[in-house]
Each structure stands twice: as structure tokens, then as C-alpha cells.
């Protein structure tokens, strides 16, 4: 009985989980972008991501159902204190800057470097990044599309989207591209942990048989 349930679970779980992390300076709109995409909601009130953890969304990419788990920095980026644990197992890294704040654009290099050092992906040169220039609804604009695109080209052609989390502009499209890139990454790299996928997530479950396996 037990084994049957388990096998069935395995079969039905033949879907993909993508871990996406969002990086960028404080207040560029990382949490807002996530919320707009997953909950279609926007709040102007800046709360430095209290309660923001990760959001999950199921979507279909090329006829495949994938679950995208989007991880927020939880504010730990503010004083450069994102620990290495945050970067583990990322399939795609989304870099965000604020098109009205030049400093947030200047930081992109260091965020990208930080990611590559901390996550140390197997093929750093091919790891998928996506760049989002957020707050295009605001004036005055400090970083032109051209400038952002040039930066992307210099980094092995990172896809670039101009978004407004507030108005929901381009958010859907951007995350679709993020999912596609993450998926392509997963398919192209032979992931050791996929071959031996028996790592354990602790859940609130116990074996129904109960007791120890030893002496009963």
C-alpha cells in the first residue's frame, strides 16, 4: 500500500521545480516585481520585504508544467549580508535595477560577480541571468535602454526587460523569459542532484506505521 502511494507520487511529480533568485540594490522593486507577477498586486508602501520569503507559481513553458520558486533577498542585501545559503541551487538569477537611480545600475556588476562567486555554478559563462530595469513608470529616467542593453551585451547577451511592477508592465513577459532560461539551464547541465535526487525535505509527516523500524 505504502509503496504504491509512493510510486504514484513519484510519477505525478515528474515536473520541474525551478529556483530563481532576485538580486539588486535595496528598493529597486524586487519584492514588488515578485508580488506583481505571482499575486498581481502592488503596494507602494515600502516595507523592506518583511514577510517576503519566496513565492511559487506554476506556469507552462513549451507545453511543460514547471513550478517556479522565486526567492526574495528578505532584506539581507541591505548591508551586504546575503549568506551563501541563499544562493544554493539557483537555476536563474534575476538582476534588478531602478531606471531612475543610477547607483542601482552601477551595482549590477558587483551583484553579478557576487552571484558567480557564491553560487559557483558549474559553467559560469553560460549561467542564465536576466536583467530587469524597473520603475519605467517613473520620471526622470537616469539609465537609457541603450545603456542597459550595452551592459547586457557585454555580459554574454543577457536578456533585458524594462518593467513597471506598479503597472504590471512587461512583468509577465520577463518572468516567462526567466522561466525559459532557467529551464534551458537545467536541461543543458547534467545536474548531479537530479541523478541522485534523494535529498530530504523535512515535512510534518511521520510514517503511518509509526514507531521505530527496529523492534516491532
Amino acid at each position: 500500500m505504502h509503496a504504491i502511494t509512493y510510486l504514484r507520487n513519484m510519477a505525478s511529480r515528474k515536473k520541474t521545480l525551478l529556483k530563481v533568485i532576485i538580486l539588486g540594490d535595496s528598493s529597486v522593486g524586487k519584492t514588488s516585481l515578485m508580488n506583481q507577477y505571482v499575486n498581481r498586486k502592488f503596494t507602494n508602501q515600502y516595507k523592506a520585504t518583511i514577510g517576503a520569503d519566496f513565492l511559487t507559481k506554476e506556469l507552462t513553458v513549451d507545453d511543460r508544467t514547471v513550478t517556479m520558486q522565486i526567492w526574495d533577498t528578505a532584506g539581507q542585501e541591505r548591508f551586504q549580508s546575503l549568506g551563501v545559503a541563499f544562493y544554493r541551487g539557483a537555476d536563474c538569477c534575476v538582476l534588478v535595477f531602478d531606471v531612475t537611480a543610477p547607483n542601482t545600475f552601477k551595482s549590477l556588476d558587483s551583484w553579478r560577480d557576487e552571484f558567480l562567486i557564491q553560487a559557483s555554478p558549474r559553467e559560469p559563462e553560460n549561467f542564465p541571468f536576466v536583467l530587469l530595469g524597473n520603475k519605467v513608470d517613473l520620471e526622470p529616467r537616469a539609465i537609457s535602454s541603450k545603456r542597459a542593453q550595452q551592459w547586457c551585451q557585454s555580459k554574454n547577451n543577457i536578456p533585458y526587460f524594462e518593467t513597471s511592477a506598479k503597472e504590471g508592465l512587461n512583468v509577465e513577459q520577463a518572468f516567462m523569459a526567466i522561466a525559459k532560461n532557467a529551464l534551458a539551464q537545467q536541461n543543458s547541465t547534467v545536474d548531479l542532484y537530479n541523478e541522485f535526487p534523494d535529498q530530504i525535505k523535512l515535512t510534518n509527516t511521520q510514517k503511518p506505521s509509526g514507531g521505530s523500524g527496529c523492534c516491532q
Partner: protein
Amino acid sequence: MDQLPTEFDVIIVGTGIVESVVSAAASRVGKRVLHIDRSDYYGGQWASFSLESISKLHEEQIERKNIINSSHIEHSGISEFVELGNKLFDIKNIECTWHVQSKTDTEQSKESTEMNDSDLIQNLVPNEEQHTQETVTWTKEALLKESRKFNIDLVPKLQYARGDFVELLISSNIARYSEFRSVSRVLTWLNEHLEVVPCSRSDVFSNNKVSVIEKRMLMKLLTSLEDVEKDLSGCKDKTYHNYLKEKKLTPNLIHYVLYAISMSDNNTLCEQGIKQTRRFLGSLGRFGKTPFLFSMYGSGEMPQAFCRLSAVFGGIYALGQPMKGLTISENKFKCLLVNDQKLTAEHLVLNLEHAPKQFVDLKKLEYISRCVLITDRSVMSSEKEHLTLLLYPPENDKNSVIMIELGTLTGTCPKDLYLVHMTTRQKTNPKEDFLHIINNIFNINHKDTESEKPKVLWVCYFSLPDFLSSDVKQNVPDNVFLGTGPDIDSDYDFSVKQAKEIFSKMYPEEEFLPRAPDPEEIVIEAEDEEIEDKDMADKQTDQKDEATDGEVKQKAETKDTETKQKAKTQDTETLENVEKKQVDH
């Protein structure tokens, strides 16, 4: 860079496991928390390091202490200034040695790349035979190239599947930030050989080293010990060893139960031994074949998981902060001096390592001997990669040793290599404490090229203070609490207990780490465009004032009934052996 906010409910210095648990618990109930560390990494003495950075551990420690000594600060007014940090709990006897050549140049003279004594590399020139067997010849250069694939724990921990720590991870929902692997076999050193310890019922019956009669004896004993109601009066004033002898067990069975299953030694008292046996038995059959779990990417992930929860609930994180000291007035902590800022809080939690020396009254200090090896194969070869726990019994004048062998699937070392952690109560010094094991199980000098024993490519010894066996009295102001460092126990139960105590002293009315809502349970309310956008950046600095207790709690509110229902349905499910990212082919 932003200035730090200056007012908090609690400031926590140090990111070891105790401080991290306190931080998560305080943020979780809506306290304004600043969590700060002098180092630019998480974990302090609980951290995991890359190969390169652990090799620099010694230098870093010296550097850090020099900073402490060089800071001179004037007294100001009525309050007393106290410098942070002490040298009492430093890591000692650090000695890392390479046992491979620097580069793949066979012409290169054999050299040890680090200062060391006599037991240096011997003959490492690969012979023809090895080449035909496709043996990889590792070099220092090649290993350092993989430096970041190593996550080398200072304090490797195994969790009992039904232990307090695992229950806490689950009940608090912090489990979502971590992944584990189950220890897949338990070994021991018995009659000059490595033997598999029969853990579960099926192990006992499939074990061909144990006779049928022994099997019955063992099952009978374990069944009787499992009975919690059982009267332990026959156990008084007796060692566990004697108790087992009286049960007329064979020497081999006594070995399995005493040294492996209960992780006891010859002096362990009977009651304690039984308690530890039950702990082992009680954790069987939950998450894998043995009772133990190991955190993916190393034990250094654990403090970070708690810090993540703290951050999610508004805790402010600042690593790499130069801290000058703190001021005390009327036996109360007043403010912490960080950079040029004065930070105030009602409570201060300090890791003992960071504590001013006048806060610490050291009665007795015991040490843990540690040894870390990088090897080229497992101690017991097998088709699949194992995560091995090896319990080495006490021998002559040596204490018993806990060894954990990790392969690449744990995310702590590169492919084709193994990382071996050894831990014991220090007797003389780490090098001597482990010498017999290294000689028995490993091939350290590479003298014997035919040897099947794992070749040691790199070895590192060090000593850590053991706060479980030490006697440290605290001499602190009323609103200051000290968090302890590493301990010899295999899991985090001691640390969690410390953290709980600190938390309940600060907030006696508050619940300790209630379940955090799942992200889907947090309702984000959309708002109209009332606030000027340009205000947003300004609000950042005082976001903490906005986030009052009430607000945080409201955010964290769970839909109670829904949650309970959910928990109920989950009860009938089996353990999720999540096939993370399984790709549909």
C-alpha cells in the same frame, strides 16, 4: 552605504547557532532585531569554509584579534566603556598540511607546500599501474581549483530524525530553508576491521556477521530498552557497559550497542546509556535507513536558515561590521558602538567569543579535538555513494571518536573525493588523539602504493572549545545574555536549549518560534497610489518604525483552520523524498 538604524529591541552579536536561533525567535514574535557579526560570513565558530578559506583560518583569527587589541577608546561620562572580544575561546592547534604535489609536474621535486614536521608526502609520482586504472592524481593546484565545492564544517553535526532540533525545524517551518541527506550506514571498528553496525530490524537479520542466537539477543535487548515505561531501578550506580554484560550479551553485541548505537564509552552510566540507545531507536525509520540526518552543503547552513527566518520577519542583518565595544551604565547595557554609530537596544545577546573578558568567569575549559581529511575514496568501498557515520571505540588511552564521511552528493566536496570529519574529546592534542585511527584506516604517507586504504590528500587539525563540558560562569549586566559556542554532542540540542533559555528570559510571555506561515498564507493587500513614490527611498531608513509589532504579527497571521486541516492531511502522507528538479525526459 546605508547607515544602520539605531534603535532596537534586541541586538545580537555573532551568528553562531545559538544567536541565530534567538534572532529568529525574537523577530518571529515581532521584536526589532539587529543581528550583527564582525566576520563577513555567517556562523562564527559554527561556519563551513571553502578549502582555501579554512586554510587561512589561522591567519584570520590572528588578524581579528589584533583588531580587538588596537582599538583604544576613551571613557565617556558616567557610563563605562567595555571592549568586545576575548581570547579565551580561540580555535587552537590549527595545522593544515597538503599530502599531494603542488602541480601535475612529475619532474617537480617532492615538496610540502606548507611548513610542517616529518610526516610529509612521500612518493607520489604516479606509476604506470595507476594510470591504467584511470586513477586521478590530485594536486594542490587541482584541489584549490575546486576550493568552493568544499564546505568544510568546523563543527559537523548530525541530527536525530526525531530529535528536538528536527522537530523545531518542522514546527517552526524553518525546514523549508534546508535540505538534508540521511546517513546511509553506520560503521564501527571491531576486531581490527570496519564493520557495519546493524541498526534496523532488517539490518539485524541480513547481517551475516551476527549469529542467529546473537540476532535474537540483540532484538530482545533493543525491544526491552525501547519500552519507555520500563523500570530502570536495576540500573542504579552501574555503568552501561556492566549493565550490558549482565544481560549476557556477546562481546560483539556489547560493542555494537555500547560504542555505536548509544555512542557511549566504558564509563557512561547505565541510565545515560539507555537514554542514548532510546534516542537512536526512536529516530529510526523516519527519514531513511539510519536515525541521522546531515545538512546538505554542510552544518554551516543551519545558522543561516534561522537567520533567513529572522530576516523574513524583519530582522536586520549586518555582517563584516567593525564593533568597538559597548557601554554599560547602572549594570545595564546601554549601547553598542559600531563604526561611528551608537546603537541602542533593550537587550543584548553576545556570543561568548565576542563577549568582553570581564563578562566571562572561566572555571574550566575543555576542548574538542577535530581532524578533517580529504581522501580519494571511501573507507569502505561500495557501488553507491554512502554518507557514513563511523563510531570508533575508545582504545588504550584514546577517547572514542565520531567520524563522518561525506561524498559529493552532500554538496560538501567535489566529485571523486571524500571529506572526512573526526571529532573527539581532546586528550592531548588533535594530532595525537587521532593518530591511531589515521594509521589504521587511512594511507597518509602514501608509502604503500598497493594499499586499498583511502589516500589522504590534505589534512587539517584544530581544537575547539567544548562548551558542554566546560564550566563558564557569566558575569554580565542584567540585560545581557551570552550564547555558547560549539559542543561535543552530535546534534544541536544543547544549543537550542541555550537559545530557548535566553529567549524566555528576555520575553517570558512570548511563544518560542511558533510556526511561520507559508508564503501563500501571507495576504498582500494592494493599495491605491497614495504615497509619493519618491518617498519610498526615504522610508527605507525608518522602515523599522513602520513595522510595528502589530503589523508584523498581522502579516504573520495564519489562517488557522486551514493550516490545521493541512497538517492533518499531511499526516497520512509518507515522508517526502523530494525529487527536487526532476527533469521530465
